[in-house]
């Protein structure tokens, strides 16, 4: 069996990117400001790939940890905007891992996942902003956000229990829209969500007296707001990875897998499919809620616009493109899809100006084109995702050669 796109291939990917950039840099006369940063980032990418290839060993783990710690500082040399892009990449990885519980483990196609993200964000916004005059501490809001989203997960999950596949997808898609429209319209008769204007001046994350917005001096080094959020998000993301991993290899995870494989047989071996499906919805929703809370605090502003159907599809695309049910794959999908648009914006725009003297295609519209193309190519050539789990890989390969009895 051919080894799939795994860590060593990632290095190759990094080298290819490197070649592409060198080519591109060559086209830039004079001093392109991000030249060095891009080089450093690619080196870090390669080191990360190297670390992943022996992540079972302590040395590999240390290498990965070192790369993750250095990353925001290297990015900062190109401007804080790039650290924020990293923050969002991790936030999306967090979201995608939450959705992975529902879609990847339990096999329930949820197109309305952004609803829980929205519920979490609004919970944070309402409990920590001048809108209601509430300013509750971090340790209260984060669990509350998760809990409220969890309740919504059960609430929206319960009517869908008898649905499967396409039907489930359509209903959850509807729920996602319903939540967004509610947020949009709950400004009258009682103003709860402030309607389309959204809620502003949301408190940043603060643990004790330590604020995550604005710069702080630590050990003589200035740590910017986005850099602090980076480390907060990293810790949260690592927690979700551990939870995902442990759930997957547990009695509950196996039961989810069984439901995904054959619901009738799962019932017959004594699995309470109703409760377990609700549990999957609730778990996924809680993570969505937590991510939403951090999102609200990081932005300082929420409005219904941030929670459109596109967002749901984007998160699902991350899971599917990366490799459904496989944690490293899902993270890869999330990071690629959240960074790609920025690379296009900062790379393709200037490149066009350099080559043709003017902007021919707007990078923003190019983004959708590239997305579509990427999805089609992945579905055609790597139907299990860019980095599928070894088992899933085996399913496909053996499925092709297997002669059914």
């Amino acid at each position: 069996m051919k080894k799939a796109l795994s860590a060593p291939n990632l290095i190759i990917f990094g080298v290819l990117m490197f070649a592409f950039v060198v080519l591109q840099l060559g086209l830039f006369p004079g001093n392109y400001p991000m030249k060095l940063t891009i080089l450093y980032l690619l080196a870090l990418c390669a080191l990360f790939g190297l670390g992943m290839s022996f992540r079972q060993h302590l040395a590999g783990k240390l290498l990965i940890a070192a790369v993750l710690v250095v990353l925001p500082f290297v990015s900062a040399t190109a401007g804080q905007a790039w650290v924020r892009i990293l923050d969002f990449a991790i936030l999306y990885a967090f979201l995608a891992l939450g959705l992975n519980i529902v879609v990847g483990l339990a096999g329930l196609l949820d197109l309305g996942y952004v609803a829980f993200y929205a519920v979490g964000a609004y919970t944070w916004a309402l409990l920590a902003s001048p809108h209601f005059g509430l300013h509750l501490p971090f340790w209260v809001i984060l669990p509350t956000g998760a809990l409220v989203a969890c309740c919504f997960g059960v609430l929206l999950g319960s009517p869908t229990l008898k649905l499967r596949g396409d039907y489930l997808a359509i209903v959850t898609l509807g729920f996602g829209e319903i939540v967004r429209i509610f947020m949009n319209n709950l400004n009258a008769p009682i103003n709860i969500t402030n309607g389309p204007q959204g809620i502003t001046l949301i408190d940043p994350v603060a643990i004790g007296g330590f604020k995550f917005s604005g710069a702080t001096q630590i050990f003589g080094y200035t740590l910017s707001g986005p850099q602090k959020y980076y480390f907060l998000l990293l810790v949260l993301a690592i927690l979700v990875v551990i939870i995902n991993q442990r759930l997957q290899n547990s009695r509950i995870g196996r039961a989810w897998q069984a439901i995904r494989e054959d619901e009738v047989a799962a019932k017959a071996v004594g699995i309470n499919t109703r409760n377990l499906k609700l549990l999957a919805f609730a778990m996924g929703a809680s993570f969505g809620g937590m991510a939403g809370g951090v999102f609200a605090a990081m932005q300082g502003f929420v409005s219904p616009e941030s929670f459109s159907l596109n967002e749901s599809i984007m998160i699902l695309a991350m899971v599917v493109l990366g490799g459904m049910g496989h944690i490293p794959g899902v993270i890869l999908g999330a990071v690629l899809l959240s960074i790609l648009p920025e690379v296009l914006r900062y790379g393709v725009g200037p490149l066009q100006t350099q080559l043709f003297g003017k902007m021919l295609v707007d990078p923003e519209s190019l983004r959708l084109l590239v997305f579509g193309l990427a999805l089609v190519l992945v579905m055609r050539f790597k139907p299990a995702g860019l980095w599928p789990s070894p088992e899933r890989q085996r399913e496909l390969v053996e499925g092709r050669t297997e002669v059914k009895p």
Partner: protein
Amino acid sequence: MSEILLQATAVAKHFGGIKALRDVSLAIGRGEIYGLIGPNGAGKTTFFNCLTGLYVPDGGGFTFAGAPLLADAPHRAAARGIARTFQNIRLFANMTALENVMVGRHVRTRAGVFGAILQNAATRAEEAAIRQKAIDLLHYVRIEDRADDLAKNLSYGDQRRLEIARALASEPQLLCLDEPAAGMNATETEGLRDLIDGIRRDGTTILLIEHDVKLVMGLCDRVAVLDYGALVIEDVPAVVQKDQRVIEAYLGA
């Protein structure tokens, strides 16, 4: 017949105008191998589905191990000690053989979400026990060398055996086998016969739907015959085989 394990009382089920089961009453004693035969469409599998909670009967009901069996949810039937296999094998195709049996342990284990996340000592011990029990069961049905293969890649006969192992994993008092010998060759059927006999000797009562008359008559202590949803006769094989109605409806002259 010793103590009664399962008592079906006037079980009825209809789909629209079709009466799939017409007031079927029968009793299965503990430790028996009880055969259920009849032509295709006679209602055998419907009876199974009612018993295991996949269908809700329209009339009548079951008493299992002295208490009524509420036909509301299949998982509760499994918890009470009724396990089944399916006529058209329903394994978790993309899980390994070992994982399939481990899923079968679900009703006899407890670990929840928090146990799984915290990985406390109790959960780890339970997980190890599940794995050990599953390995033992694979040995029991003699497919231990296929433990790490995906269920869908097992041979037909091994898939049947795996399904039995998965059912046994829930430590059932009553094991319901729906045409386990269908599609098997003579050697495989012989092996299956030994397996079923062994399971009974180890203390599990067996309800067997089967078309292989030789297997049923040789293996079962008592046999019930269904035709058009109604019970024709329930007796020891020797009597059933000679019954005129059974010969007309099913066995042929």
